[in-house]
């Protein structure tokens, strides 16, 4: 802190520190602490405030663990988000490898530019595009009917639609970290392995993937977090049977009118995401500084 004052003088430094405190304390920490406070209090009518009922309780959290439907949706969200991350990795890995190891400089630049275009287009529109494709009388069903792959139109909205839309929306959050990680691998290492008779599968399993571990972990963490915390794709591409945990949270706030329970549910989501982030980073031995690049 002394260094800051030496460098910018008292007036500017105070201004900087004030701005940072306003951000971190007022906009990051305080809201989260207040959310925890809410989660740990019962939902009271105005007349009950200040009475014996007005205290800390675990009832909201316990309610969640006792509610089978919500628990099921929660675990489905966790499992589906994991699936989204895994599918996205499988879809991206070959391209990332090609970009990093095989492509010429010009090819890489061109493809990366082409890839950034859908990335700049907002998530709602990207999901809307899938809403149109997957419609009951939409292009996908027409195409499959015309080619004779299906006999009658299929209903795509639901789990399948949500998965397709999410993988589509988050593809680049996976591609870039994996590409960056593979890029730093010396081509000579792969050639040496090949010269020594290693198969393609073995080269990837023993050389490329261990080398790119940090990038893969970063991509998976981001994709998982985005998938678990999104509201767009399940709301647009989902069906009544494919509810997402964020939709349950939303309902507590704007339909159920129980903010305390909603806060408890949001807290569960936050804890889940933080746990996934920290555990994955620990397992892959990645530091937080590498993730945010």
């Amino acid at each position, binding site marked *: *802190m002394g260094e*800051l004052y030496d460098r*910018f*003088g008292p*007036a500017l430094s105070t201004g*900087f*520190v004030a*701005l940072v405190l*306003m*951000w*971190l304390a007022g*906009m*990051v920490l*305080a*809201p*989260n602490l*207040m*959310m925890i406070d809410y989660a740990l209090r019962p939902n009271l009518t105005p007349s009950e405030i200040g009475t014996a009922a007005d205290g800390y309780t675990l009832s909201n959290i316990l309610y969640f663990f006792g509610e089978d439907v919500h628990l099921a949706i929660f675990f489905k969200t966790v499992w589906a988000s994991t699936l989204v991350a895994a599918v996205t990795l499988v*879809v991206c890995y070959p*391209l990332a490898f090609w970009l990093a190891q095989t492509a010429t400089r010009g090819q890489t630049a061109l493809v990366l530019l*082409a*890839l*950034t*275009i*859908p990335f*700049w*287009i*907002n*998530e*709602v*529109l*990207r999901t*809307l595009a899938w*809403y*149109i494709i997957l*419609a009951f*009388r939409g*292009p996908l069903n*027409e195409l499959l009917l015309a080619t004779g792959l299906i006999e009658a139109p299929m209903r795509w909205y639901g789990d399948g639609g949500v998965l397709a839309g999410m993988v589509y929306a988050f593809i680049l959050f996976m591609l870039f970290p994996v590409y960056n990680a593979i890029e730093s691998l010396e081509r000579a290492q792969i050639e040496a392995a090949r010269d020594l008779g290693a198969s*393609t599968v073995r080269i990837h399993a023993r050389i490329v993937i261990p080398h790119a571990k940090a990038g893969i972990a970063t991509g998976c*963490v981001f994709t998982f977090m985005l998938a*678990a*915390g*999104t*509201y*767009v794709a399940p709301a647009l591409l989902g069906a009544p049977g494919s509810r997402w945990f*964020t939709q349950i*949270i*939303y309902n507590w*706030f704007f339909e159920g009118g129980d903010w305390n329970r909603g*806060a408890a549910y*949001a807290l569960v*989501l*936050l804890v889940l*995401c*933080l746990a996934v982030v920290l555990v994955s980073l620990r397992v892959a031995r990645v530091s*937080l500084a590498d*993730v*945010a*690049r």
Partner: protein
Amino acid sequence: MITSAAVRKGLYALYFVAFFLYLFAPLAIMGAAAFNESRFPTVVPWQGTTLTWFQELSRDTAMWQALWTSILIAVCVVLVVVPVGTAAALVLTSLHARARGVAYAVMVSPLLTPGVVIGIATLILWRQVGVGGGLFLIVVAQSSYIACYVMLMVVARLQRFDRTQEEAALSLGASRVMVFRRVLLPFLAPTLIAAGFLAVLQSIENYNTTLFVRGFDTPLTVYIATKVRTGLTPAVNALALIMIAVTILGAVVYEVLRRREIRRRRSVSAH
């Protein structure tokens, strides 16, 4: 005989076609549907080419209102996050090892927090002082995580700053405020412009956080999502097409500026 190398090449080619089809076909179909006469946005069956939906879009006052709301929010977000993110980067880089690690973890934590949680937490905090959802809370909630991006960009830029420039200016009698304004700020300017641009895009594109703090205000993404439920017409596709065109244009300008900057830096360091 077909060699395994040829098979591998063929598979790769197939994968490439599939990947880029997956990436661009949805956007192409969504764009094309804006010109189809069909009442529901689709490309099959093609009922005739028309520009009706663009006219209908231009008459849609609710859409214009939503667009205006989004722009207003984006401008306010930029005004908050550029100073905050810059200050955060400067404070962070002047901290020492341990404190820096802690501060860094707190500063990037909003990026690892689900968007809906950011919205909810903001909504709850401000309810305590009687402020409900609306423009103000949208700006606050969005800024809380967009500031992270600005901070990261400025930190990256600061790593290439030569501190001797500041010392030279000081020893020539400049005040510290003047050194900041005349030396550091001009050095950071290109990054601050890029960060502001990124902040605008992030703000306009946000949905998950905004949904919870919007109150009775309707920014563009919320408007589009609502349309999907209340009656989607190709007018929304016309809007999507325009937004795609604008974003591509913006992305190209951003890329060109970024590359020019990289080239300039290279030629400077070559001397």
